[in-house]
């Protein structure tokens, strides 16, 4: 059992089968009573050698694999993969495809954030938030079904465009879902953000400074909650984001609560982006192509591109050798880096804070371990 002189402190292994670790990972924490004095995250339970697997597949066959990187952000991951191959091929996308990708990405972002909010509810001990969020999420999963026939692993983007155009009445369904959601989100805010018990659980926990966040490489809403004003959609635009007017919510407090607020605001902004993109799509004639033909083989070279995943900065680095299979494909997962900062996040917190703090990272182990 316990050895050595530090009998007043003990190591607790939280995970891999623990209610707080949403997925298979372990956070070993050393506690002094209820206070965390040391922490050590351990991952690797899901390591499949994703990048190595890709080296043996032709380019289009990797799209469904990219979907499986994260169950709730499959759209952005396959988008990122298609984007890096398009840059390697040096092709220009048709307008319709670019806007469709924006719509699909934002639907994905909203449902991913809702999944996160649901997890925050259970981590803080309230099941109502969980069920209400999943109820709202269903409407966006239904939109996924309408758009590409699948709820989670969407397999929608293609190299050179998207798989199919919008089905009939998709814009009507999409706008209905968005308008309904904007009202329903206030309901969820009323039970979380306006409840002082909820806010007290999040305020003042997991505090990081701006310098720490930049140095530790934390990205996404966790970074924007610490005062770093950076969003790849705005600052390094891709697809049609450069033509869409939206705000990037940034808060300066750097605690769990500001990360929570940033994500809530992002959901509203995503609704706004969908609205603008839909309005723009209506002006593009239906006869406009949504996909272009691309060659099977990719010319030799190295290519890097990045995208704003719901969880942070997703980056892919492609080395192509002129064949129809990638020579090397590197995936930079935002959660992989964010979870490596677990120690500074939970140091000094109480045991009860660990789920609340780590929930703001929005764990997704498929992309972390790859």
């Amino acid at each position, binding site marked *: 059992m316990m050895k050595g002189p530090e009998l007043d402190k003990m190591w607790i292994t939280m995970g891999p089968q623990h209610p707080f670790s949403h997925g298979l990972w372990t956070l070993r924490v050393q506690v002094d009573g209820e206070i965390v004095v040391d922490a050590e995250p351990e*991952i*690797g339970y899901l*390591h499949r*050698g994703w*990048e*190595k*697997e890709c080296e*043996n597949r032709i380019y289009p066959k990797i799209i469904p694999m990219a979907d499986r990187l994260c169950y709730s952000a499959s759209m952005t991951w396959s988008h990122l993969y298609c984007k890096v191959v*398009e*840059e390697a*091929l*040096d*092709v*220009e*996308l048709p307008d319709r495809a670019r806007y469709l990708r924006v719509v699909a990405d934002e639907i994905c972002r909203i449902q991913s954030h809702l999944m996160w909010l649901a997890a925050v509810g259970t981590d803080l001990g309230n099941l109502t938030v969980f069920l209400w969020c999943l109820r709202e999420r269903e409407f966006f999963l239904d939109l996924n079904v309408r758009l590409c026939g699948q709820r989670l692993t969407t397999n929608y983007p293609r190299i050179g465009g998207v798989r199919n155009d919008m089905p009939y009445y998709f814009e009507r369904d999409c706008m209905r879902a968005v308008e309904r959601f904007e009202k329903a989100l206030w309901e969820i805010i009323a039970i979380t953000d306006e409840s002082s018990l909820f806010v007290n659980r999040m305020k003042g926990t997991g505090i990081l400074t701006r310098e*720490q966040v*930049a*140095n*530790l*490489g*934390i*990205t996404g809403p966790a970074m924007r909650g610490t005062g*770093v*004003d*950076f969003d*790849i959609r705005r*600052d*390094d*635009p*891709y697809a049609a984001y*450069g033509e869409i007017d939206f705000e990037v919510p940034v808060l300066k407090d750097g605690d769990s609560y500001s990360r929570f607020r940033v994500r809530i605001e992002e959901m509203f902004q995503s609704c706004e982006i969908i609205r603008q993109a839909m309005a723009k799509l209506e002006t593009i004639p239906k006869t406009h192509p949504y996909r272009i033909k691309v060659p099977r083989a990719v010319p030799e*070279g*190295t290519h*890097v*591109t*990045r995208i704003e995943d719901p969880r942070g*900065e997703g*980056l892919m*680095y492609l*080395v192509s050798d002129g064949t129809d299979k990638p*020579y*090397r494909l*590197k995936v*930079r997962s935002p959660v*992989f*880096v964010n979870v*490596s*900062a677990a120690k500074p996040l939970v140091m000094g917190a109480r045991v009860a804070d660990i789920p609340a703090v780590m929930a703001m990272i929005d764990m997704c182990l498929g992309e972390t*371990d*790859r």
Partner: protein
Amino acid sequence: MSSDAKIEAPSYNDVKALVATKFPKTVSLRENTKKNSRADNEKRRIYFKADRKVLLELCTYLRDKLNFEHASSVTAVDWVDHMEVVYHLSNYFNGMLLEISVDVPLDDLTVDSVANVWGGANWHEREAYELFGIVFKGHPKLERLLTPKYYEFYPFRKSYKLRGQE
């Protein structure tokens, strides 16, 4: 522009000129070749090839003077006759993504660790170590991360064949 003040949002040409004057022999620039796709984005990409002796110095310079606060990723590529370590750095103020590639010969698979420059590079270097066998000198905890601790091989090297590939 004085040379020791921190430049918050350096432009493409600033970075090019400053790095060229500071590291005239050891760092070379690779020009962008993209024509069609996202010409805007290509203005925010810089590709450097550096000698591994100056890597740590270059990284510290980039972080402290040119404000590349964020290390997006560190990865390795197995070119069979040599290895290559690739660093992606980004600047939060102008959205610039900078790439440094460093060649590592097979008979001496070591390179300086940048984990003390950017904490975010820590796990990336561990990953590159366990998958490619590149030793990062000065890394605080260079252990296997994703693969089991008892592995004695480096699965992402080209010499490591998958089943049915031999």
